[in-house]
Structure formats: structure tokens, C-alpha cells
């Protein structure tokens, strides 16, 4: 939450600044600093669009294309979500980012006892294809891409997206979905995991393999340093984990005999923007460089465009506070600036009321406008990577690169990311740091406006998004209706095929699409996986 540690003397002069990743910031930077780190323009940064892509993946940056805005949206019934999607699109939003309720994320139907009280609460409830038909009605799926924020059952939701597109007459080759589909990060933070590590990673491999031929415009995996950072990781650890997690998914697909260039170009990333702003800019620039180098040197990736770190840089949830919530509007604006100065392809902002509730239409629109202001009013499209060449930024970008590599080495020494997650090594590390941050805030060593400094002033209550029990009832009714109308024979047959595919270790995607088209429910499909794969056993932390 807090951004850096400041060592001050009694006159409030700053003696030292220690960024979260451990970099010490000096009071002044000059050409000497670049000399000291052996800075080379060609080797360390190069022009935008040139390896190692430190300055960005496109030669012209936002001149050729502004970022995609993708506010996280979805609640209640598919009808309500469809309405909100259309509202955001009508206000100029250029992509969708679908929020699913917890039962859907955890593979339970709305009529499951586990779902009680959670139906449609933090996202849209999806039981069957019928829900997607309603949610995506009148949305041009060939023109607008959709992020699907779901992980454990991302394979099911990607199949559902293909099924709805086909139902509305779109060729699967033209639709663009970005399922989050990063289960290792769910096990570190966010916690919406179901299956054990090995089958869970295999499911991700299935979606990547399947997308290569059937869904070529889809980005089958969005590797999320984001939630690891939210859970307590430093910016350097965020990137280190993200790269190692991405490598784990690459390895799964390589083991199936594919050429890395056939699929890795569709990987994308979801990274966080809260914290000290210079540190974040340096983080994104270093991350692009390290990802490109990792692919080139470790995986021998040949095509330049496959080396791009494309990503959603945004959110910033942990940076927002419950105290003085209107301050979060300003925080969001600075976070968006950081994302723009860092060359984000896609962005989204947490809304100022998210420490209380899911965003109201008003707060979601404020976030969208914040993003639009930067691109269309403030000049962030003028020139690419405007901070490049700054003695300070180039120095800490290089230092950040080293810090990230150190964190990667630590995890590799432990035995790698899969072992680190399975045994709780990373979770313990991250939880410990989260605790240290809290202690820093309580001691005052870390400063947060409205929380431990400038606390004066009225606290305000924000308008709450109310849970709608009637919507939940309606959703259960709708599922019952689908179950009455669908062909039980088709459902049984497609589920049986899914079961044998899962049991035989085959790619489950073709069977999942058939199940979705037969109106099998998410709970039925996930239930088969639960039965065959079992569940993840959370390592004990304390």
C-alpha cells in the first residue's frame, strides 16, 4: 500500500529513499550514473519496437494506437451485465473485462448449496450457454475483445465464449477472448483455485494448444503478477513470479511437441500499477526487456513479435484506501499516468469505491474518463516512451532488472515456481511481506495519506451496490428452465465424452465446446474435473 521507506533527519530532510524492491534512490542523477552502470542505448533500451523492447513493443507507441480500456464489469444476472457492458461501450470503452461471481469462478452452479448468498454478488452468474447468450447479446464479438476474469475453470469459459460466438454467427477465428487463465497466481494470491497444480496447469496447456488452430486471435493466458503484488509481493517479485509462471505454461505446451513460436506470441500479462511511480515505470520497462530476453535466450524464440510483453497494466486495488475514499479518484489518475508512461497496451482502473463495494455506474465511468483524459486531452499519445534517456529512469530500470533477476534466482534455487507454489514457499514469503507493510504503516515508517498522515477531515460513506436476492432467485429459476428444455441425451453424451477426454489426458477443449453447446452447466463440467482431478491441497502457512 505504501510506496517506499523514507529515512529523514530531524528537519524533515530526506536522507535516503528505499523503494520496495530494495533500490536506493539518490538525490541526484547525472550522466555519471549511466556511465557507472555501463549503460548502452542499443543494448539496454534500443528504439521502441526493437529488441529488447525496453522502450515499448511498437515503434510508434500510442501514435499508432491508443490503449484499450477494459474496466472490470459484471454483476447480478446476465441481463444486468449486458446492460452495463453496453453502457460502458456507449461511453467509448474499447474492450470488455468480464467479472464472474464466485460460484462460477469456483465451478458451482447457482442452485448448488455452496453458492448460497454469492450468486451474482461480485460478478455475473454463468451457469449455461444461455447466460452468455444474454450477456453478449448485441455486442460485436468480431470488433470487441473480451477479458474473461476466470482461472480454475477458464477452459470452460473459453469454450463457452466460442459457443456463444458461433451461436451468433461469428467465425471462431475472428473472436478475441483473453481468459485470465493463470492458476499458479491464484494459488499465491486471490485464491480461486480448485484442482491440484498438475492438472490445473495441464488445463491451461489445453487452452493454449487449442487456441493455436481454432481461436488464433484469442490470448489464451494472461499471466498475472497483479494479484501476487496485491497479496504483498514487491514489484520485483511480481515480475519474477510472472515470468517464471509464464515459463511453466510454456514448458507444458513444449512438452506436447510444439514449436514455441507457434503459441508464445499470444501470451499476455496483467500487471499492477500501485506504488512509487518511478519504481513502477522502471518495473514495466525492465519487465519487457527481461521477458524478451527470457524467450530469446531460454526458449530460442525466433519471431520478433513473439518476444513482445503485451499487457494490461492497471488496477491498483491495494493502493486504494477505505479512509477518505475520494482520494482514490486522484490515486487512480496517477496510477493511470504510470500505466501510460509505461506503454500499457490495455488498461483498467479500480474504482474509488472498490474498498467498499463493487463499482456503481458512476464510479466505473469516472475511472473510464480518467483513462480517456490521458489519451485524448493530456498528451500521452504524443510521443513514445517519453521518460527514456532520463538519467534517473534509465539507472533504476537497470537496477530493477537486476532485482527481478535476483528474485527469479531465489525461486529457481528453491526448486522452481511449481515447487514454490505447491509447498507454500512463495505464499509464505508474500504473506510475511504483507505483514511487514502493515507494521510499517502502524509505526509510521510507511506513509499513506488519509491512513496514517493527513487523517483530518470528514470520513464519508459511499453509495453501496446492494446485493439483489431476487436476481439470485431469478438466476436459479433460469437454470432450472434451461435444464427442463435441453436435451438430456445430448448433455449426457457430451459430458461422457468430456469425462473420457479428461481421464485419458487428451485436450479437453473440443469436448468442452460440445458440452457448452448442449447447455451442460458449468457445475456439471467442473464436477467431472473435480471427480477426476481432485482438489488442490493448500499448503499450511503458519
Amino acid at each position, binding site marked *: 500500500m505504501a510506496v517506499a521507506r523514507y529515512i529523514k533527519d530531524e528537519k524533515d530532510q530526506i536522507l535516503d529513499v528505499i523503494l520496495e524492491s530494495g533500490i536506493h534512490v539518490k538525490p541526484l542523477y547525472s550522466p555519471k550514473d549511466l556511465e557507472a552502470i555501463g549503460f548502452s542505448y542499443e543494448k539496454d533500451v534500443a528504439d521502441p519496437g526493437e529488441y529488447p523492447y525496453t522502450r515499448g513493443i511498437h515503434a510508434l507507441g500510442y501514435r499508432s494506437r491508443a490503449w484499450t480500456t477494459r474496466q472490470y464489469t459484471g454483476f447480478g444476472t446476465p441481463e444486468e451485465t449486458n446492460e452495463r457492458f453496453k453502457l460502458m461501450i456507449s461511453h467509448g470503452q474499447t474492450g470488455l473485462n468480464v467479472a464472474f461471481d464466485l460460484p462460477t469462478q469456483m465451478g458451482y452452479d447457482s442452485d448448488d448449496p*455452496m453458492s448460497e448468498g454469492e450468486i451474482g*454478488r461480485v460478478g455475473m452468474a454463468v451457469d449455461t450457454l444461455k447466460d452468455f447468450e444474454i450477456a453478449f447479446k448485441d455486442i460485436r464479438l468480431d470488433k470487441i475483445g473480451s477479458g474473461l476474469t476466470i482461472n480454475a475453470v477458464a477452459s470452460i469459459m473459453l469454450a463457452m465464449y466460442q459457443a456463444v460466438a458461433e451461436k451468433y454467427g461469428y467465425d471462431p477465428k475472428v473472436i478475441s477472448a483473453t481468459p485470465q487463465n493463470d492458476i499458479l497466481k491464484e494459488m499465491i494470491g486471490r*485464491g480461486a483455485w480448485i484442482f491440484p497444480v498438475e492438472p490445473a496447469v495441464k488445463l491451461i496447456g489445453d487452452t493454449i494448444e487449442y487456441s493455436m488452430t481454432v481461436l488464433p486471435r484469442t490470448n489464451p493466458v494472461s499471466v498475472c503478477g497483479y494479484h501476487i503484488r496485491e*497479496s504483498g509481493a514487491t514489484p520485483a517479485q511480481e515480475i519474477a513470479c510472472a515470468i517464471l509462471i509464464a515459463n511453466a505454461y510454456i514448458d507444458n505446451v513444449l512438452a506436447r511437441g510444439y514449436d514455441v513460436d507457434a503459441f508464445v506470441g499470444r501470451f499476455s500479462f496483467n500487471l499492477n500499477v500501485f506504488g512509487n511511480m518511478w519504481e513502477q515505470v522502471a518495473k514495466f520497462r525492465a519487465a519487457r526487456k527481461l521477458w524478451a530476453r527470457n524467450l530469446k535466450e531460454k526458449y530460442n524464440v525466433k519471431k520478433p513479435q513473439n518476444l513482445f510483453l503485451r499487457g494490461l497494466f492497471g488496477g491498483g486495488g*491495494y493502493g486504494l484506501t477505505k479512509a477518505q475514499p475520494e482520494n482514490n479518484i486522484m490515486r487512480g489518475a496517477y496510477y493511470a499516468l504510470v500505466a501510460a508512461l509505461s506503454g500499457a497496451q490495455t488498461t483498467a482502473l479500480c474504482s474509488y469505491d472498490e474498498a*467498499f463495494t463493487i463499482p456503481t455506474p458512476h464510479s466505473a465511468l469516472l475511472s473510464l474518463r480518467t483513462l480517456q483524459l490521458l489519451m485524448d486531452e493530456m498528451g500521452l499519445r504524443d510521443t513514445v516512451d517519453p521518460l527514456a534517456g532520463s538519467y534517473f529512469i534509465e539507472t533504476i530500470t537497470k537496477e530493477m532488472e537486476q532485482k527481478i533477476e535476483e528474485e527469479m534466482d531465489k525461486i529457481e534455487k528453491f526448486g522452481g515456481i511449481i515447487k514454490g507454489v505447491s509447498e507454500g514457499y512463495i505464499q509464505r514469503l508474500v504473506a510475511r511481506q504483507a505483514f511487514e507493510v*502493515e507494521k510499517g504503516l502502524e509505526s509510521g515508517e510507511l506513509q499513506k495519506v488519509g491512513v496514517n498522515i493527513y487523517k483530518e477531515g470528514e470520513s464519508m460513506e459511499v453509495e*453501496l451496490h446492494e446485493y439483489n436476492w431476487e436476481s439470485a432467485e431469478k438466476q436459479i429459476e433460469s437454470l432450472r428452465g434451461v435444464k427442463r428444455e435441453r436435451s438430456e441425451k445430448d448433455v449426457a453424451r457430451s459430458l461422457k465424452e468430456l469425462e473420457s477426454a479428461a481421464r485419458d489426458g487428451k485436450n479437453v477443449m473440443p469436448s468442452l465446446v460440445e458440452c457448452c453447446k448442449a447447455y451442460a452447466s458449468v457445475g456439471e463440467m467442473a464436477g467431472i474435473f473435480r471427480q477426476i482431478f481432485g482438489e488442490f491441497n493448500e499448503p499450511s*502457512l*503458519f
Partner: protein
Amino acid sequence: MENKKTVKVLIAKPGLDGHDRGAKVVAQALKEAGMEVVYSGLHRTIDQIVNIAVQEDVDVIGLSIMTGAHIPITQKLFQKIKQKGIVDKMVFVGGVIPSKDVPTLKELGVAGVFPGGTPLAETIQFLQSISKKG
């Protein structure tokens, strides 16, 4: 001087939500303050939580809820607590809790509500005061 008993606290994550940063921070803070802490892990049903509370013989159950479902979940917990006859256990709740819901939670029998942003010291002090009463 009275004999001070160590408070034993169960930090529990009920339901499907996996946001556990807060729960884990509180667990570590209570531990460091000298309490005995049991962490339930994620995705626990109320039945499972009450069973852990009985098995581990904790004094206090702390629920961490971020989804907005704090009222129905807490209601369920108290039903189960009565059923199991363990009404001596103290209950506190943390998470994303709007202040307008605090009175309702207290009416249900919750002894303390600590929404996100509450200083750790406040939660620790509250639990220590319980140990003195006990």
C-alpha cells in the same frame, strides 16, 4: 496476580472468496502478540469452521469476509454455534464491512467488527481484553 491464559484464535475464511491478505496479516499479528492462532485456509464451509473451532478448542472465531456476504454467513455461523452448544466462543468479523452493517452484525452476536483499515493494535487489544475477562 491472576493466571493469564493464552487466547486461542481461529482465523477463518468462510465461503468461496480467496482474498486472504487481510486474514493472513491478522493471523501473523495475533501470533506476534503472543496468541495461539489457527488458520483455516480457504473455501471453508461454516460446518468445517465450527468443527475446527471445536477440535482445536479455540476461544475466539474470527471470520474474514470480503464479498459482501458477511450478514448471511455470520447468521449461519451463529445457528451452527447454537446447534453445537459452543456459545461460549467469541466471534469477531473483519473484511469489507460497510459501517451501516456493523449494528446488524452486533445484534447477531458478533463481539467485534474490524473492517479493512482497522489498525492491528485495535484488534489485538480487543482480543487481549477478552483473555482478561476469561
